[in-house]
């Protein structure tokens, strides 16, 4: 094995080693030491990823590193292999890079927690699973990672397991993800039946000969999308993500914003060949993505929990990515994955820093005026807010504008909807920002700036959020769409999307978007920065607003539509099936056995002679039968 292959192996192996090591020694390691170890292991993986990025010849289309034959039976051959190409390298850099920063941040955030070493072991395990997901050369290895990240997500949401609500949130996330997984498993079965392999490369090769709109492919892609829906929190399976904020804030940043929830987008991009063959699925993805982007953004408007706002924002941004996928703009979606990872991780870590500063307070109604006391958090959070709103020349501007331009080219209606979503995003983000950092302090704690291990990641992520756009500067602004060209080597579909808009139209779109965003910022400044209007209990609100504040009552709808009938059914099964049928049946069998036993037990006299006589009689009867039957 050459050095290059060792590097590939080290990328997932280091976090796994870290997880095992810290997990086994968790009782002996102090929080700081465990955190340091976990960060070091992941930083090592990041270094390996960077080395690979610099040395791999991705322009040749990537390569497959085969480790061993995993499943080798008649008619089925699944190797355990990694796919190293532009797409997986992008995701590897993202996972290990952002992951390392968040690990570093966690050292400060979790320093007082008694189970910090368990936390770090699970965080490392998550990174391993995520790397497996993005590096796998076939759907089955991706699926191991897929389930692995689901498990780690469950563990980390319920990390503070003494709180029953958090456990409920963890279970909810797990169960809803399972619904998506059913789609994914069915899709795998269908694809295997169709192609006889689960290797991405082999499927892509064979798919070339299929006609567009092939029913099996449409069905398989729809099922894959169901899986993506569950993992990436799209309508109608998005309700778990806001609840997932029960976990520690670094978890929200790493798993529920930057990496795991983008697994769905990754899966679609990875299978782009198939999705290109299924226009129906693409329309569905576009519709679901747009609807999610708008709906989640509208819910975000009136939430009062700092992390909930960011959670709905994440759902909404994931909707943007799916909308881009639906339009065939895979590069735009991946670009947004990367920039979103930067600024959303930054925002979550900033929120964590605020929560840390206020000793656990999460309600923005009891914050305000924090810009003076936590200066670094203030500045970095401002950068994150500007970036997510798409202010010119920040990273979010480039990626969001690319999606909007694609949307305009696709249909002005989609453009209008997504632009509306973008304005909603600006509104709730600046509402959050002004309520937290401006005005006067409305709480009772003594805010203090976070330690350096927390502020350094914030600063690095802030820098990345500012300059992240240079990865893919459009031709219009004198760039070369570097990331698009890089990604297009992994699969032709990734570079196929192109904008045919005139420069004047693009400038106009950019101008309109920017003007509206700035107007929205001004509006929120007037409403929330100078004399903030605080919302009271949602019950006292006028109707449309109340519906938004109560999250469109979607959780209640699901409870009414699924939980209640299921609960009723379970109660019936218990009352009739168990109480009236199963238990009497079992008791009846017991009684019959007991009665029969009572009848025949008189034979057991305990008299040795009698038993011998009985034995003799038995032998004689047996002999007679044998003789007669001959």
């Amino acid at each position, binding site marked *: 094995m050459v050095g290059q292959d060792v590097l590939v192996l080290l990328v997932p192996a280091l976090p796994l080693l870290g997880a095992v090591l810290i997990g086994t020694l968790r009782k002996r390691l102090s929080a700081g030491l465990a955190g340091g170890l976990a960060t070091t292991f992941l930083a090592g993986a990041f270094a390996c990823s960077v080395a690979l990025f610099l040395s791999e010849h991705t322009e040749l289309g990537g390569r497959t590193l085969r480790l061993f034959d995993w499943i080798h039976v008649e008619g089925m051959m699944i190797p355990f292999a990694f796919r190293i190409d532009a797409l997986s390298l992008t995701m590897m850099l993202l996972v290990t890079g952002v992951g390392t920063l968040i690990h570093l941040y966690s050292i400060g955030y979790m320093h007082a927690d008694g189970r910090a070493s368990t936390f770090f072991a699970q965080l490392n395990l998550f990174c391993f699973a995520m790397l497996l997901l993005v590096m796998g050369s076939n759907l089955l290895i991706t699926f191991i990672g897929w389930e692995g990240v689901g498990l780690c997500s469950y563990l980390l949401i319920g990390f503070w397991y003494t709180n029953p609500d958090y456990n409920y949130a963890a279970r909810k996330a797990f169960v809803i993800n399972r619904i998506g997984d059913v789609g994914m498993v069915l899709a795998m079965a269908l694809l295997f039946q169709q192609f006889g392999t689960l290797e991405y490369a082999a499927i892509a090769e064979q798919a070339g000969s299929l006609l567009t709109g092939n029913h099996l492919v449409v069905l398989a892609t729809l099922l894959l999308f169901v899986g993506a829906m569950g993992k990436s929190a799209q309508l109608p399976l998005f309700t778990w993500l806001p609840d997932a904020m029960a976990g520690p804030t670094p978890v929200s940043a790493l798993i529920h914003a930057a990496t795991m929830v983008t697994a769905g987008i990754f899966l679609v991009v990875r299978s782009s060949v198939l999705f290109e063959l299924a226009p129906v699925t693409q329309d569905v993805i576009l519709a679901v993505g747009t609807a999610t982007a708008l709906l989640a953004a509208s819910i975000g408007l009136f939430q009062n929990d700092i992390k909930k706002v960011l959670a709905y924002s994440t759902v909404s941004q994931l909707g943007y990515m799916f909308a881009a996928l639906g339009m065939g703009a895979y590069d735009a979606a991946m670009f947004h994955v990367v920039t979103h990872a930067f600024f959303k991780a930054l925002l979550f870590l900033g929120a964590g820093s605020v929560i840390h500063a206020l000793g656990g307070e999460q309600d923005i109604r009891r914050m305000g005026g924090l810009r003076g006391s936590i200066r670094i958090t203030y500045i970095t959070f401002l950068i994150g807010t500007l970036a997510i709103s798409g202010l010119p020349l920040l990273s979010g501007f480039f990626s969001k504008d690319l999606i909007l331009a694609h949307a305009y080219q696709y249909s002005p209606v989609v453009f209008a909807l997504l632009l509306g979503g973008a304005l909603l995003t600006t509104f709730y983000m600046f509402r959050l920002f002004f309520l937290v950092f401006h005005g006067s302090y409305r709480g009772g704690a003594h805010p203090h700036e976070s330690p350096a291990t927390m502020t350094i990641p914030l600063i690095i992520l802030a820098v990345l959020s500012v300059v992240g756009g240079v990865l893919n500067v459009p031709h219009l602004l004198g760039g070369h769409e570097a990331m698009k060209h890089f990604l297009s080597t992994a699969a032709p579909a990734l570079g196929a999307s192109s904008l045919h808009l005139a420069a004047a139209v693009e400038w106009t779109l950019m101008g309109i978007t920017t003007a509206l965003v700035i107007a929205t910022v001004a509006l929120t400044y007037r409403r929330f920065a100078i004399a903030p209007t605080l919302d009271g209990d949602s019950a006292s609100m006028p109707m449309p607003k109340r519906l938004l504040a109560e999250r469109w009552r979607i959780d209640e709808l699901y409870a009414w539509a699924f939980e209640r009938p299921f609960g009723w059914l379970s109660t019936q099964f218990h009352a009739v099936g168990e109480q009236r049928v199963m238990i009497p049946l079992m008791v009846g069998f017991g009684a019959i056995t007991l009665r029969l036993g009572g009848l025949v037990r008189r034979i057991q*006299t*305990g008299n040795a*002679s009698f038993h*011998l*006589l009985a034995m*003799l009689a038995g032998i004689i009867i047996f002999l007679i039968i044998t003789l007669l039957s001959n």
Partner: protein
Amino acid sequence: MDQDIITSIRVIPMEHYLMLSFLLFSIGVAGVVFRRNTIIILMCLELMFNSVNLLLTAFSAYHSDPRAQVFVFFIMLVAAAEVTVGLAILVMMKRNVDSVDVNQLNRLKW
């Protein structure tokens, strides 16, 4: 086998051996089933063994086949071992219930 012995065995017809052996075996079975004295029961067991041995020897002589006699030795060996265990049980029985009446051991029942 010594030719004289074979000849002398063959002097008596086979049916007689069968009959004697059957009688001895039946006495043994009746003794085991109906007697209460454990010593008698053990002796009756020996009687059954030996009736079989007798028959085996007779058949061996009549068929000129020495293999049956091997079984006789095996049976003798097993009987010796069986008696050792049986007598040991008998001693324990005497110690525990101060009796050799097999019906004293009737507690293993419903």
